[in-house]
């Protein structure tokens, strides 16, 4: 699991739990059903003996309707356990960044738009995030639908013209993470990438204080 | 036919349940509520029609113990095998849409063609 799902935010760590529970439940169900199908195919291949002629079994059918119901109720509870905290937006975020998607790159505005960076498809921009602090992202788009996707955070949210999406990110390890637009947006959609760089809080503070001169 | 009445009545009830549940959870999101309301209304319309139609219906398929012998000689109506108007109607619909976008004259001609096809189709079915 480490290879594929290794979240770099506290929100991602919560969602990782949902991932693991769902994956294990799914694999167990798959093994059970595959086992039953393969058993039928081997054990009941055509032979001389006559096939049975039963047309149903009410108790068994009801049992096998209730078991999946219990499984999905369990999975729904596990889902809500991570969904609700991930979607909650802190009333007093320690940091706030405006992100605007456009065809085909990104605009990042720090500190109430006092520091603004743009990118191009050829020169993807970098988004700096402070380690251990909760950053609120205010996401919108200036033309068509886009989607802000950081695979290392196990997270994406759509950037939609005419509305602002707010969400919190709390990075838990430093690093450089390749990120991208996930919602198809035209010719250069494939090149609409950006880089997320999680930096120590002190370096981030210097970046803000120097009005963007001191790149972390 | 009773089965169908039950089918549409239960579908309507189900639509109403989903509508109410959705309204409680997400009433600030009006698009979904409106869509579900229209859908439930359509199902209710079909259900009411089914209830009324069921009173006068005599459908051979619903007779548990009917056999082909019992309905021998019954008039099943005339089934057509060929008609040139469906394909002409479909083509006219295409030109009607193309006309709306690119050429009012084409649109007008196509609307006339659509009406002609519908009229001929109606006349054909009336004849049999």
């Amino acid at each position, binding site marked *: 699991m480490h290879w594929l799902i290794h979240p770099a935010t506290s929100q991602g760590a919560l969602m990782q739990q949902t991932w693991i529970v769902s994956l294990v439940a799914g694999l167990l169900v798959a093994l059970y*059903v595959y086992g039953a199908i393969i058993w039928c195919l081997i054990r009941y*291949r055509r032979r001389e003996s006559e096939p049975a002629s*039963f047309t149903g079994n009410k108790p068994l059918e009801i049992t096998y309707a209730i078991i999946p119901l219990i499984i999905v109720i369990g999975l729904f509870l596990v889902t809500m356990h991570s969904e609700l905290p991930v979607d909650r937006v802190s009333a007093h975020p320690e940091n706030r960044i405006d992100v605007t998607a456009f065809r085909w790159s990104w605009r990042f505005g720090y500190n109430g738009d006092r520091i603004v960076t743009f990118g191009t498809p050829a020169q993807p921009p970098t988004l700096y995030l402070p380690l251990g602090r909760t950053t609120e992202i205010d996401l919108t788009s200036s033309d068509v639908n886009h989607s802000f996707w950081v695979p290392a955070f196990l997270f994406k949210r*759509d950037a939609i013209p005419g509305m602002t999406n707010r969400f919190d990110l709390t990075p838990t390890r430093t690093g450089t993470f390749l990120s991208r637009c996930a919602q198809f947006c035209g010719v250069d959609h494939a090149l609409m990438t950006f880089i997320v760089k999680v930096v120590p809080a002190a370096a981030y503070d210097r970046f803000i204080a120097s009005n963007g001169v001191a790149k972390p | 036919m009773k089965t169908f009445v039950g089918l549409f009545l239960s579908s309507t009830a189900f639509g109403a349940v989903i509508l109410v549940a959705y309204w409680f959870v997400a009433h600030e999101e009006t698009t979904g509520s409106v869509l*579900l309301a229209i859908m439930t209304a359509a199902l209710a319309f079909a259900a009411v029609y089914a209830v009324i139609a069921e009173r006068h219906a005599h459908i051979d398929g619903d007779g548990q113990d009917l056999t*082909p012998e019992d*309905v021998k000689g019954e008039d099943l109506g005339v089934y057509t095998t060929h008609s040139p108007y469906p*394909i002409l109607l479909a083509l006219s619909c295409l030109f009607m849409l193309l006309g709306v976008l690119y050429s009012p004259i084409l649109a007008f001609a196509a609307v006339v063609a659509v009406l002609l096809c519908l009229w001929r189709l109606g006349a054909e079915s009336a004849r049999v």
Partner: protein
Amino acid sequence: MITWLTATDHKKIGIMYIITTMVFFVIAGILALMIRAQLATPDNDLIPSHLYNQIFTLHGTAMIFFVIAPFGLGLANYLVPLQIGAPDMAFPRLNATSLWLFVIAGIITFLGLATYGGAAAYGWTNYAPLSEISEGTGVGADFWLIGILLASVSTILTAINITTTTFLLRAPGMTMWRVPIFVWEMIATAILILMAFPSLTAVTLMVLIDRHLGGHFFDPAFGGNPILYQHLFWFFGHPEVYVMVLPYFGIVTEVIATFARKPVFGYVGLVISAFAIAGLSIGVWAHHMFTTGAVSNPFFSAVSFLIAVPTGVKFVNWIGTMWKGSIELSTAMLFAVGFLFNFLLGGITGVMVASPPIDYQVHDSYFVVNHFHYTLGGGSMFAMFAALFFWFPKIFGVKLSERLGKWCFWFMFVGFNITFIPMAFMGLEGMARRVYTYPNVEHLALLNGIASFGGVILAIGVALFFVNILVSAFAHVPVPANPWGGYSLEWATSSPPPEFNFETMPPINSRRPLWDAPSTQGSGP
């Protein structure tokens, strides 16, 4: 030729439906191979972006609107009257109109390729406001919208026809609780179409109005709303998924029961679960919008999870039908079993993406590409081939070669899984869907290479099917009325059936008229 163009006989219409879907299936397959060729290596520049965008748009459009959904309707056109013992559909002329609207819709959609600027390139979902910005594609995108508009009307008309036919034209003794499961699944499909497709018609018209008549439905600068597009589109779009699956559930049920030599297990359960799936599918549309931040995720997540329950019931019934049976692994049965294997994986990833926190990672990524190809490709497409092998002798009076058929199945099954399993991992490694190129990071180069290799094997399997048709047509071994020992009414008449279907109708006093009255078996050449 003219007799086919003007035909209103449901069998001829069904055959023309099926042949049209096969033509589009081959075209969509070639487009898929072009996609795999472009993505075989990272940073590839074989196909430029603007062309690639047209290719994946047309691949998705063709498979959804012109192959998987209409094949089910076309087969229903052929089979429903036969299975309920009717001489034709209730409205033969309306039926022909549906067919030609559908054929013309497919042609006009693909004619976009011949226009200056090329075909539509917005993905099959055609999201506004992107689809309202003419970006190289003007006329081609209009043609796409006209095609979808005609196809949606055609589908609605067919649904009306199927519902009315099953209401009114059942043979004496063929009560509702005796019709084959395939007919029940088609009733559920038809009612679902009537509920969902008007939304597609409306949203397509709205985009046309925005593009040409100065509307601003989806333009936020003028008070429009892009989220409105997604609501209207997915209110059709998710039920559409089940329109593309329910008929295939019916096919698989008939094939399994016939080759296991056993009555369908839990007939009533299968009927109820079909309607439960259809009903619930109306309440899940916004699970395609979990990442928009504009919908109630818990509501849509809960209803999406619930769909797993009736689907699970169906699996129990299929396994129950095989249990203690006498299973003959013919080609049709192999494809039905292949359906069970692939569709189960699609269902399990489906339950995973019903969870918003998981969807936040995999939405619009190759994980989702894996998911829906397992349901619609490994699921519906395999069931489509089961249907083709099963009913081909009935429709054309010629049996397909079983030997070649088994080669076809194994190439397709192995090729399909080699192609699509790696895509789940690509998605988790951060590969978005609808990208014409990707950087050489993580294992993307390896995974895409494997997928492209699998695509070639899958294509060989599909090609073997068409070789099989040629070989079998050439050999032309005539078949009896009931070559597989089937139990439903279509096997009581000759292969192919005469005009108005039945010379003599067997008595119907159970769900299996041919098994319970064996004297009628094997009559006719």
